[in-house]
């Protein structure tokens, strides 16, 4: 059964930033906000690797994370439990994310600061609707 269905797609359009929480091997949680969670396929999402280094370090130690996405259409909010799978630094997904990120950067005055280093692909383990 696919994890990501039609009801989740509006929350993956990138109109509302997403909250990501990871945890180090020593048990230290870390929370941050990212511009967008990208739909890859019905079982995978991608997070942009820009500069959230603590998140990246945590994922190297403990591949599990949660990411909260919110639909601008109806306020539906979902918590995705995800596990890091791989990073892509080229290809169609990377190019699409890079272009979208540049568009977000220019709209929010962050040109030159938002820079895509990689597309981190995560497997979606479960999805919980919290609102």
């Amino acid at each position, binding site marked *: 059964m696919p994890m990501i269905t039609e009801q989740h797609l509006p929350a993956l359009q990138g109109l509302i930033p997403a909250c990501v*929480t990871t*945890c180090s091997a020593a048990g230290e*949680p870390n*929370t941050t906000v990212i511009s967008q969670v990208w739909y890859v396929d019905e079982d995978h999402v991608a997070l942009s690797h820009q500069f959230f280094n603590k998140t990246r370090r945590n994922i190297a130690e403990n591949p*599990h*994370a*949660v990411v909260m996405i919110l639909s601008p259409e109806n*306020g539906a909010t979902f918590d995705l439990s995800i596990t890091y799978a791989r990073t892509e630094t080229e290809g169609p997904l990377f190019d699409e994310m890079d272009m979208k990120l540049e568009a977000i950067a220019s709209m929010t005055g962050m040109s030159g600061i938002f820079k895509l280093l990689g597309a981190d692909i995560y497997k979606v383990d479960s999805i919980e609707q919290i609102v």
Partner: protein
Amino acid sequence: MEIPQNCLDVLQNGIQHIGSADLGLKPSHNFAHGSRINLDEGTITVFVQRAFCESVVKNSETVKRAVFYSALVSHEAYQVKGNVTDVGPISEEDVQASQKYCQSIIQILSEFGLPPENTRKIFGRVADTAITIELEQIFNQTPGPQAGKPIS
């Protein structure tokens, strides 16, 4: 710890999240419903609704470690990390402060095109629990070269 005024403003007025992890290193998070900084005690008290933040409250009670993240729509953001010193019922005064904070967030988000009927599903909730975290470390989370660095 000396905290710059702009950081205090963001911590109290930004869109807030609280995060934690269980003993199995599984992270959890959710929106917070306001906060109170206690500079004399070196703590921050975060307002949440227990039923809405069940895992975070449980982890705060058991693991006793939490993070608090707050960001303005301008992207200026800070993160507090520290031990949890108390989890308990919220005071009436803090309920009032929480509701005032939530109203302001609903208003801010409506100015960005998010209908209040949607954001009320999150910020229309009444906080009933206060989680107090030591101001052990505060990190700059604003995108840019200072991101991830401690503020002092």
